[in-house]
């Protein structure tokens, strides 16, 4: 008797919903938890139909009720245990997710005595899962909206399974154009399509593969990227796909290139200074010796003209060396406050002293009014403009327009645009434009633009170039304005 009471007590206090019904579905007993959930007292529950107790004939629960009924009938008919998960309304009318185990209880003769229902309330688990789903959704949104990176994934067949907004921006291919296509379609013009198998092998082995490479956009433009490939792993540890994450590193490459460029220029400067010095000495001696000899009285005509020719050639060497030295010198400009408009106006008439192709060039001056002063060395800046104007003339063999524009940029710096409508500079030459000894002209030493570059750099400014073959070239010079409180003229 005592044991029965203990068992009954245990059942009543169990955390599961428990009820027992007869072969018709009428409840014979239930525990406290069941009472709590359905919100009815024992005396009302016992003797009632279990399904009507649970669903209370709620309208919206008809299909659930039928499922419940079907499960019960199944248990009654086949007399075998089963389990199912279903939503039932609690006393407040809120859905609870209950995992039911149905245990038909049989007599010794295998006749059905009744059915024991035991239910676990799984509602809180499901809530957690739902919130996990929410996190997934949030992550998905974040990833979709990441624009700094192109994110895309492929499955084991190499087909693109995910393709984010960043990728759309980077490649120029719309999601609809590329999704579920093979990754080679995305990389049809770049190296990735050749490297793909190797890369994926590496990822399989080490979990990760990184490289810097060039991608080609839909419109054919190429740009540098840093690419990281990782893999999806399922719970068994098997690879199920690959994640590609690419970042456009154009800006970083530009900076690296500039640093590389200025380091290269500095190294070249030293080299050139050394060479110039070594050439200067013997040239100096040759020049001095011929000068002395030319002063000899009664020198015969043939010797005199020979010596003159030597002197002329040596002078040419010395002038060339002098150019090298100008290029390599890190001299601090002798600075004064300058009006760039005036410097440009002064330089233009000097052009006629240079051997320029005799073509029709229109000069279009768009000068900033109330131009702010910059601090600089007028001779050095003149040299910059002479060089750039000569280049412009030489680029416009068929004639054209040279536009010189100065702009005060927000009290910070002066912008000078020098544009021609000439032949333009091919991309490769554009890359090396400011390097010394790089010249596309037969008559050039390749020093002009590198001297310009150095001079502008010494003025704490910058010089850049934009060009289109067949359309023309624009040099853009940026020079800082004199700030109030700067030291006076030297």
């Amino acid at each position, binding site marked *: 008797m005592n044991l029965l009471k203990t068992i009954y007590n245990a059942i009543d206090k169990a955390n599961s919903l428990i009820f027992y019904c007869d072969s018709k579905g009428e409840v014979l007993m239930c525990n406290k938890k069941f009472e709590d959930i359905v919100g009815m007292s024992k005396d009302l529950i016992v003797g009632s139909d279990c399904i009507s107790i649970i669903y209370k004939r709620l309208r919206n629960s008809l299909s659930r009720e039928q499922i419940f009924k079907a499960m019960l009938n199944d248990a009654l008919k086949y007399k075998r245990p089963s389990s199912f998960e279903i939503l039932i309304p609690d006393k407040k009318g809120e859905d609870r997710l209950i995992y039911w185990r149905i245990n038909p209880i049989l007599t010794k003769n295998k006749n059905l005595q009744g059915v024991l229902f035991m239910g676990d309330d799984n509602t809180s688990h499901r809530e957690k899962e739902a919130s996990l789903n929410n996190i997934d959704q949030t992550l998905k949104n974040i990833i979709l909206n990441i624009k700094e990176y192109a994110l895309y994934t492929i499955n084991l067949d190499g087909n693109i399974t995910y393709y984010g907004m960043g990728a759309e921006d980077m490649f120029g291919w719309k999601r609809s154009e590329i999704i579920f296509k093979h990754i080679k379609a995305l990389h049809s013009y770049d190296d990735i399509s050749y490297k793909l198998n190797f890369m994926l092998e590496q990822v399989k082995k080490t979990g990760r593969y990184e490289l810097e490479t060039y991608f080609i956009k839909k419109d054919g433009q190429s740009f540098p990227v840093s690419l990281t490939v990782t893999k999806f792993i399922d719970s068994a540890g098997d690879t199920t796909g690959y994640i590609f994450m690419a970042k456009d590193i154009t800006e970083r490459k530009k900076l690296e290139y500039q640093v590389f460029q200025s380091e290269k220029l500095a190294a070249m400067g030293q080299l050139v200074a050394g060479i110039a*010095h070594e050439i200067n000495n013997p040239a100096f001696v040759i020049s*001095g010796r011929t*000068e002395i000899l030319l002063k000899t009285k009664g020198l015969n005509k043939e010797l005199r003209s020979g010596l003159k020719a030597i002197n002329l050639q040596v002078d040419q060497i010395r002038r060339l060396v002098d150019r090298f030295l100008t290029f390599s010198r890190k001299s601090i400009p002798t600075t004064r406050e300058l009006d760039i408009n005036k410097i440009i106006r002064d330089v233009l008439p000097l052009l006629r002293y240079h051997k320029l192709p005799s073509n029709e060039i229109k000069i279009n001056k768009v000068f900033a009014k109330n131009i702010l002063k910059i601090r600089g060395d007028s001779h050095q800046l003149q040299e910059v403009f002479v060089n750039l104007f000569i280049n412009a003339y030489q680029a416009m063999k068929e004639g054209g327009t040279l536009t010189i524009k100065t702009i005060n940029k927000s009290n910070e710096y002066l912008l000078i645009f020098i544009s021609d409508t000439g032949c333009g500079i091919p991309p490769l030459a554009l890359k090396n434009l400011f390097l010394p000894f790089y010249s596309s002209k037969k008559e050039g030493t390749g020093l002009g633009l590198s001297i310009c570059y150095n001079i502008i750099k010494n003025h704490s400014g910058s010089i850049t170039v934009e060009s289109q073959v067949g359309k023309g070239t624009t040099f853009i010079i940026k020079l800082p304005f004199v700030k109030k409180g700067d030291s006076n003229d030297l």
Partner: protein
Amino acid sequence: MIYKILVVDDESAVRELFEDLFKKEGYSVKTVATGEESLKLVEKEDFDAVLMDVKLTGITGLEALKKIKDLKPEIIVIMITGFGYDEELISKSKEYGSAGYIGKNVPISRIISSFNLFVKTAKEKNRRK
């Protein structure tokens, strides 16, 4: 007036050239190849002027200039260089007391005339002192 000049240059061809040039001008000329040698000679003999190359083997022309001026402040030292016009070298030379600075990139006749001018100006300056 006849000047007594010391030429310091590590290239023998350059030394010989200056020797010939200055002798034609009527100067008395001595030449040495290093800064160290020039110091010894300046200590022993009196010169009106020294023409000193900037780039030398051993001590540099600038160092030799400084030491010579320490030794005999009245001596006129003119620097000459194959580096051409160089701000840093010019300001250093001035600081160490040189009377002038000539680049080897100008015609010989101008080097001589510059040299003469520098010596003349420095002499007058010394006299006024």
